[in-house]
């Protein structure tokens, strides 16, 4: 059982003709068969989803789920009133407010003067003047979609949309802002300042 040497030499170098291990051969054959199946499934027939397609599918499913959720739990004044009464909810809203809103509305929501003497760019959320309306659903819409500047109604700066934080965050922010309503903090921005170009 000496090893067989092949007849052909490569520049004088001889070559054996030992049989490849069966396990090697079979994993190779199976890999070839698998690759054909894979190709047909994903690329020829399209029965499998390539990553982009599966991502789109997931996105659509998530959008559908959100739509269903919104239909089941529509955002109404009553629901928002309930949420504003929920302490834990309001506290989370406060944390979000501190992270996202204080730049323009200041920490107490009053848009008061800072150390350089400049008013906050945003509106005073604690006084009686509400540019777009103070109904809970209106506040929700303002935070969700933002508002364009409209000098006619006295708003020059506009309001940023926060939809990218997610509906849950917007609901919490709405609940928190509803608790600020009417608190009339000291040093808050007076309504005359809204009319001035910021």
């Amino acid at each position, binding site marked *: 059982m000496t090893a067989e040497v092949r007849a052909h030499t490569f520049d004088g170098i001889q070559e*054996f003709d030992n049989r490849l*291990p*069966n396990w090697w*051969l079979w994993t190779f054959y199976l890999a070839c068969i698998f690759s054909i199946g894979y190709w047909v499934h994903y690329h020829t027939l399209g029965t499998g989803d390539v990553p982009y397609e599966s991502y789109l599918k997931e996105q659509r499913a998530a959008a559908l789920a959100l739509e269903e959720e919104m239909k089941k739990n529509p955002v109404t004044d009553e629901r928002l009133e309930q949420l504003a009464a929920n302490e834990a909810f309001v506290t989370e809203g406060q944390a979000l407010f501190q992270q996202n809103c*204080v730049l323009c509305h200041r920490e107490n929501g009053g848009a008061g003067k800072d150390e350089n003497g*400049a008013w906050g760019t945003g509106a005073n959320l604690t006084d009686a003047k509400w540019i777009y309306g103070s109904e809970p659903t209106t506040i929700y819409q303002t935070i969700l979609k933002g508002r364009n500047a409209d000098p006619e109604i006295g708003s020059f700066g506009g309001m940023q949309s926060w939809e990218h934080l997610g509906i849950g965050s917007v609901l919490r922010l709405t609940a928190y802002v509803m608790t600020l309503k009417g608190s009339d903090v000291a040093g808050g921005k007076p309504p005359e300042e809204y009319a001035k*170009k910021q």
Partner: protein
Amino acid sequence: MSETPNETAGDVHKPVVQKNKKVVRRPDVDTLFSINPDGSRNVIHPADVKGRFQRYKHLLWIVLIGVYLALPWIRIGEHPALLIDIEARHFYLFGYTFNAQDFWFAFFFVTGLGFTLFVVAGLWGRLWCGYACPQTVFLEGVFRRIERLIEGNAQARAKLDKAPLKAKFWRRGLKMVVFFLIAALISHSFVGYFMPTEVLLEAMTSSPGLHPTAFVFVLVATLILFVNFTWFREQLCIVVCPYGRLQGALYDADTLLVGYDNKRGEPRGPAAEKGSGDCVDCYRCVAVCPTGIDIRNGTQLECVGCANCIDACDDVMDKLGRDRGLVRYDSQRGFETGKRRFVRGRVFLYGALMLLGMTMFTLALTRRHAFEARLVRGPGRPYSVEQESVHNIFNLQLINKRSGTRTFHIEQLGPEGARVVIARTDVELESLGTVRVPVHFYVPDADFKAGLRAELRVTCTDDPDGELERVATAPLLGPSR
């Protein structure tokens, strides 16, 4: 590397011998002993061996297995000693914390390790393979021992291979079950290096549906390990492992390898025969070899440097009253001329590259900042002119690189005369936590000119190393003048 000066001695190197009228195949240099001529597997059952190298190995393996099983559970401070949390992109290495940004360190760490292996291989051949590689440690240290316990010694196991199914079902079955359980233990421990151990325990005690990826991974890994340690065994070392193949390029004539002193051993003959060499053709060195070679044929691809043959031959030499070392660690030059040389160019080259890798890693590590503070322009318009001020919006990105929570204070640094509005001036960040703080710069229109830069000073006040400070800067944009 498989040529020995004595290769031409015809008879003794016949690959097939007659032994009690039965044809027995012996290892040769032209074929792979663990594969039969028809391609089927020739299962190797190495005989048991005792000796000093076995003792060294067993002690080392206890330590290595202990470390492997224990390390995921060891914590340094509030973090694991070693955790590569790929999902969260947090990496913990003995007190140091890294995020994805620092991943480039891994290049130097890995190349440093790689060249360390090169140095070791250049000096001592396949020392890693026979002593520290998980394949050897688990196979020889755990699985084969259990196999011996359940099925008996090498001859008994070979007999059981040929026995009909009914005779071996329970014994083999028991062995398979135990092997599967150990494979599961190894793969679960493995996951502990990539997933926090609390999460691992929780995943193990709850439904697979909650952690589908981890479950599938562990299942597949267990199956692969099971097949590997039950059946595949030395084929991995011989055919699959690239490190084994790399060795050939890393050896030279001075590398210490397991080898046979054919000057001393040839010509082979019975102990009583006068004029014969020390080798008595007892075939013990062949019987104990786990990869199925005859070391007397010279250095071979399959040899993993396990030193079983050294211990086996020393044992026989002891019994015959001859000197040990007929099979021993020596270099090719050592076998031929008796001289050994360690100091050589190859070792210096590999050593230098190893030091380079390790040094770069250490430097990168120690010079890393405690935190990252970067001013990134806000999305949307580049600037706007409002009320006679040029207004630029930025986000300050803060990343805490330390292993504990830190507090940061942000303040204005420049340019002169600008009004800076910082959303939050004091921020607390957990380890590897990140935050984006909006910052607005207003520069009076009259003072604005090209080349002005927004500058913020960020200070970390509660680091044990003292007050740390970084300046974050970015260009200010405005109307061209």
